Every structure is written in structure tokens, then in C-alpha cells.
């Protein structure tokens, strides 16, 4: 085994079951989410690594796809334009219009569409051969998106509700609650203003983190057990790799959808009359 556990692929090791080698030697863990810099120094803040490469590459792929589809759009669409239109229309009608409404929501369509395809692409890296790492399983990426949404939400709430309205909105001020009102306001304040961006980011991060860990676990186990009677177990484990890959494909799209749906719900909440 090399000295650096972060740069080892599953089949790079010679560690197998019944060879006197423990699974802990090769098992996935937090180190699976660390990358040696491709450029620069890992100790400073000036470096460039695989996740950054994938993030930028993913952006280019999204732009490339939509550029090819929407650069010169036709009234009678071609195949690519039709596919892109379907995706665009799904977010526009299925998410934005449904939650915010057509009139108010139109302004936020580009933001939400970009957000959805960005998150989805970053998730998709998980099962794209060679890359095989979900960028969103590094907390920085979901967090920065959640912060952008959070800032949008705070600014919008201030704009729409004014100063008093803003505090009423974030504390869920409601006179009919009576004596529990202070408590409810405190909880709401924490929930909306402090915990919300955190949960928004962590929901996506944790799903991708766990998904990638599962895939790693079954992949590495398949290789690890490939010895003697262990081959039978390895087969089962490999079937699980296939199943989990398919499952991840579903989860990636679902989490991207949930992320933008929550975004829309927050924006809608900022516009809603306080009750």
C-alpha cells in the first residue's frame, strides 16, 4: 500500500480476504474524500484539485449542452433542443410556477434552472467513469450554493416585507399563539435564519457523501473478497455496486430537484404576506 491512502484505487492494492489483510486497511472513509492537489500546495489555500477540476468541467459541460441546444433555437425544435426544452420546461413549470407562481416566479426561472442543472451535473460526476466522484460530497459546493440562495432570500424578504416585516417573517409572528409566542418566535428565528442554510446544504452534501461511500464500500469489497470462497461474496457485492449505481442515478436527480424545490419554497416564503 502506498503511503497516501487518498490516491489509491480499489484494484491498486493486493489486500484480499484470507490473506491476513484486514478490510480496515482498504475500507473507504473520510480519506476517500480528500485529494492531493493537482497543482499548488495543499497546506496553503492556493491549490487546484480534482473536485475543482470536475466543478469547472461540469460548468463547461452544462454550458456546452445548452449552447448546442439553445444557441440558435428553432421554432420547430431539433432533437437536442427538444431534450433541453423538456428539462428547462420541467423546472420552469414543474418547480418555479408551481411554488412561486407564474407572475412572480418568472424572474427567478434562470436562477433556479441554473441551480438545478448545476447541482445535478455535480451529482452526476459520481457515476461518470474515470471522474466517479460527486463534487457535491465536498461540503464547500453545496454550502456556497445554499449561501447564494440564503442571501437571495434575506435580501428579497427585506425588500418585500420591510424591516419589521422581515423580523415578523423570520420569526413566524402570529398573535393567535398566545403565551407560547415568544418560544415559537425563538424557534422559528433559529430555524429560519441560522439553521436553514445549514440544513439546505447538508441535505445535499450528506446524501451525496453517503451515496459515494456506499458505492466505494461495495466496489472495494468486491475486490477485497476476490479470493477463494470469497469470490461468491464478491459477486453479491458487485451486484450491489450495479444496484447502488442505478439508485444513485435516481438520488442525484432527486436531490437536485429537492434542492431547487426548497430554494423556490424559500423565495415564495419571502414574498408571501406575513400571517
Amino acid at each position: 500500500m502506498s503511503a497516501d491512502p487518498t490516491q489509491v484505487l480499489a484494484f491498486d492494492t493486493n489486500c484480499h480476504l484470507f490473506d491476513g489483510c484486514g478490510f480496515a486497511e482498504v475500507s473507504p472513509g473520510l480519506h476517500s474524500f480528500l485529494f492531493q492537489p493537482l497543482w499548488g500546495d495543499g497546506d496553503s489555500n492556493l491549490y487546484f484539485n480534482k473536485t475543482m477540476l470536475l466543478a469547472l468541467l461540469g460548468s463547461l459541460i452544462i454550458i456546452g449542452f445548452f449552447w448546442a441546444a439553445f444557441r440558435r433555437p428553432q421554432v420547430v425544435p431539433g432533437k437536442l433542443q427538444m431534450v433541453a426544452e423538456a428539462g428547462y420546461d420541467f423546472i420552469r413549470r414543474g418547480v418555479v410556477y408551481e411554488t412561486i407562481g407564474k407572475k412572480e416566479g418568472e424572474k427567478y426561472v434562470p436562477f433556479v434552472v441554473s441551480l438545478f442543472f448545476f447541482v445535478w451535473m455535480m451529482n452526476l460526476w459520481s457515476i461518470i467513469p474515470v471522474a466517479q466522484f460527486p463534487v457535491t460530497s465536498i461540503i464547500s459546493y453545496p454550502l456556497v450554493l445554499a449561501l447564494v440562495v440564503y442571501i437571495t432570500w434575506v435580501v428579497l424578504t427585506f425588500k418585500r416585507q420591510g424591516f419589521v416585516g422581515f423580523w415578523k417573517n423570520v420569526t413566524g409572528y402570529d398573535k393567535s399563539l398566545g403565551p407560547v409566542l415568544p418560544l415559537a418566535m425563538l424557534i422559528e428565528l433559529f430555524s429560519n435564519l441560522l439553521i436553514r442554510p445549514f440544513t439546505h446544504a447538508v441535505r445535499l452534501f450528506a446524501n451525496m457523501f453517503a451515496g459515494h461511500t456506499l458505492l466505494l464500500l461495495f466496489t472495494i469489497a468486491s475486490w477485497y473478497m476476490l479470493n477463494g470462497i470469497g469470490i461468491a461474496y464478491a459477486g453479491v457485492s458487485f451486484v450491489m455496486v450495479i444496484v447502488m449505481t442505478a439508485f444513485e442515478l435516481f438520488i442525484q436527480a432527486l436531490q437536485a430537484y429537492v434542492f431547487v424545490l426548497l430554494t423556490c419554497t424559500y423565495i415564495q416564503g419571502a414574498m408571501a404576506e406575513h400571517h
Partner: protein
Amino acid sequence: MSQLLIAASEGGENPLVPPIPELVIGLLAFVIVFGFLAKKLLPNINKVLEERREAIEGGIEKAEAAQTEAQSVLEQYKAQLAEARHEAARLRQEAQEQGAALIAEMRAEGQRQREEIVAAGHAQIEADRKAAASALRQDVGKLATELAGKLVGESLEDHARQSRVIDRFLDELDEKAEAAR
């Protein structure tokens, strides 16, 4: 295992502590996507979607206009047809009336001519009868006078002529005949 523990104890291992450079790159990557989609590509497709919607609605409008026109033309045609029928009926009626009037007129004319002819015939007959009667009277008078002269032997002619006896007698006869009739 030992390596894992060592790795875990090192700083920056907590997966919930965001590394700053990734944060920056993540923001940059998203801003690139958002910039391109929001400024260029989505407005593009929105314009085309709007055009498509208009094209479809325009087509429907055109079809509706054509239908309306067809409807109006049909109504016009129907109106013209009805008018033509009406006109034809009117002409027929008029012709019938004219024909009837003509026949009545002809009939009246015929009647008039017949009456004229009949009247002329009557007048002719009357005149003939009168002429015949007067001629007869003269002849009868003459013959009677001649006869009487022969009987009397003397020429009564002049006397008779003077006295107009014969004529008076004949008039009396006439009157009697008239009265008897």
C-alpha cells in the same frame, strides 16, 4: 487502520468544515453557468418559445378567420339564392297576372266586336226591312190604285195622289198591325 486514525486526527478532515478554495471555485463555477444561461441561452429559448406560441395561436386565428369568411360567404350565397328565388317567383306572378289581364282584355275586345257586328247586322236588317216595307207600300199603293182605277174606270190616279187616301189607309193598316202585334 493506523493510517486511517492518523489521517482522521489530522486537520481538515472534518467533512463539515468547508475548505475555502473549493468554496471560491464552486461559486465561480455556478456563476459561469448562471451567467451564460441567464444572459444568453434562456432569453434565446424564451424568445423562440414565445414565437412558437404565437405561431400556433396565429394559425388558430387564421383558421378561425377563414372559417368566419367561409360562413359569411355561405350566408351571402344563401341570401342571393333566396333573393333569386323570390325574384323568379315575382316574375312568374307578374307574367301570370299580365297573361290574365291580356286574356281578359282580348275577351272584352272580342265581346265588343261581336256586339258591334251584331248591332250592325240588326241595323242593316232594320234598314232593309224598312226599305222593303216602303217599297212594298209604294207597290201595293200603286197596284191598288191601278186596280181601283181599272175598277172605277176613271183615272183616279191624280185624285188619289192628291188626297193621299191610299197612304192614309196603309198607315192605318200599319197601325192596326202594330197594335195587334
